[in-house]
């Protein structure tokens, strides 16, 4: 019997080791696939033109097809940064409220509800962008339509908020209670304690929360496809329509003939997106590690 248990133990041990290694292998596999599939495009399009030129028109028939992802890169970046500008202050504020001010009752109800927000399908949020956020934006700014980068930013902020609030609240809560007590005992107000003591103490956890929120925003497809208007010109500001990298892949991959320059180019913009999210996740990971060391 003991032997049997030992076998079981070792089997389960091996199974999860295999699982862990499999995830690493899949990640490396995706990276290699993206590189291999996107390499041929750079034989035809110089890397500089690919990254910086603003004209993306791979299905052109009357002129030479062009593969410049500049405006898409800017569009993706604008929508994500815009989302963070909205989501970070709101997210950290809510997290601080939940961890320090709210009564346990309020927290017990609010936190699960906020986490449910993370589960709303992105098409539903995109739909709200078309029928609700769009018309409001066009009224406020006197625009002919509300399908623009700002609309996308607002929706992505809504989608990134649960991640930011939940993780930032965890970070704030794990600041030792003695910090808060010491600050209050020295005569600081609640506000001063939160701003000057708790948030600085939890800063790396909060940075990690924001970065993970941004990772979600950059990779989001359906919402921005529906709400940002998808025009390929270089955006002039938050009130112009943009097309993000994810939307382009979603629209064009369905019908692109295999093994053509266009096909490889779609993999190449996918690779750029992968590298962008990879860097963001790395930063959040480093920040998280630092934070774990501090709290230990």
């Amino acid at each position: 019997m003991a032997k049997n248990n030992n076998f079981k133990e070792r089997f389960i041990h091996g199974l999860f080791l295999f699982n862990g290694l499999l995830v690493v292998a899949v990640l490396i596999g995706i990276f290699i696939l993206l590189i291999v599939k996107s390499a041929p495009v750079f034989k035809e399009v110089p890397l500089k033109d690919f990254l910086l030129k603003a004209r993306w028109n791979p299905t052109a028939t009357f002129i030479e097809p062009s593969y410049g992802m500049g405006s898409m890169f800017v569009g993706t970046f604008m929508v994500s940064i815009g989302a963070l500008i909205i989501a970070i202050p709101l997210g950290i504020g809510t997290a601080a409220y939940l961890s320090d001010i709210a009564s346990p009752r309020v927290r017990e109800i609010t936190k699960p509800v906020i986490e449910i927000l993370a589960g709303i399908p992105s098409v539903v949020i995109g739909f709200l962008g078309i029928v609700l956020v769009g018309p409001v934006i066009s009224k406020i700014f006197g625009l002919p339509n509300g399908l623009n980068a700002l609309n996308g930013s607002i929706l992505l902020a809504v989608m990134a908020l649960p991640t930011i609030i939940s993780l930032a609240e965890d970070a704030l809560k794990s600041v030792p209670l003695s910090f808060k007590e010491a600050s209050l005992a020295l005569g600081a107000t609640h506000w001063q304690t939160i701003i000057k003591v708790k948030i600085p103490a939890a800063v790396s956890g909060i940075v990690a929360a924001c970065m993970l929120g941004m990772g979600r925003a950059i990779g989001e497809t359906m919402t921005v496809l529906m709400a940002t208007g998808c025009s390929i010109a270089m955006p002039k500001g938050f009130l112009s329509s943009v097309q993000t990298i994810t939307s382009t892949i979603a629209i064009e991959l369905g019908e692109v003939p295999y093994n053509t320059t266009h096909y490889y180019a779609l993999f190449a913009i996918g690779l750029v997106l992968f590298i962008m999210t990879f860097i963001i996740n790395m930063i959040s990971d480093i920040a998280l590690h630092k934070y774990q060391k501090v709290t230990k």
Partner: protein
Amino acid sequence: MRKIICFIATVAVLSFSANVAMAKSDMVDIKGSDTLINVVQKLAEIYMKGHPGSTISVTGGGSGTGIAALVNGKCDIADASRGIKPKEVEDANTRGVDPKRVVIAIDGLSIITNAQNPITKLTVDDVGKLYRGDVKSWKELGGNDTPINLYGRQSNSGTYDFMKEVVMKGEYSPNMKSMNGNAQIVEAVKQDLGGVGYVGVGYVKDTTGINVLQVAANPSLGYFSPTNSMDVKSGKYPITRPLNQYLNGEPKGAARDFIIFELSSEGQEIIENEGFFAIPQEYQRYNNDLLGRSGEPEAKGTKYSVNGRDGN
């Protein structure tokens, strides 16, 4: 534990046999054009009522997506609002797929503007100028001094291609907003004083808030409206196009039965009720040839070109 396994096994066996049973019944998978999706769905609904046991599933995604699915063997019929491209035929042939075309309806591609825009008619050339981005203000076309906002479709749309190849004969302005479908274009133009959009005529049955422009090939030939069935069928309205369905090889089995229903007078009436137009005689003859219904021998290569981009 054993009970659970038993249960799972039973469910698996049942669902498998259900699948087999489904496959035996008349299952037709249709995919493609967003212009055609509503009307084909309506046809399928009515057909299924009259033919219990038959299942017809209709999904959208755009003409390009539909044709790609047909080439990859992922659907039985591809809806397409444009002709198949030579490149797609080539691709299909290398995969052993032989695309055959049936024309099920006629569309007058409608150019729409906001109801408050005083412009009511344009030439095909003007429409091209608009979408190529050669004009920036409605003033240049004789209207108010309002900036032009272009609404179009995404590049997987057949209407996107038809507009580009046949009407504009040039590339789209990068400032055009790419919408998800015909209905979204209509909604956007309703709210935008300077907006212009192009949609299948089935989407302008309700014209509240929009103008359906009259279009002329040449001002001297006169301006015509796509909502007038006579003008579209006779080809006086300059941007008419056939709406197609592509199959792998000559239609067979359940797919053939459904196509015969679509082309019947009942089917054509449904198409007209949905705002599109019944096919004229020349296409009826073409379809009959393909279906081998006119007494003529079922020729392998029909005399009509199904490979060319005969979008107009």
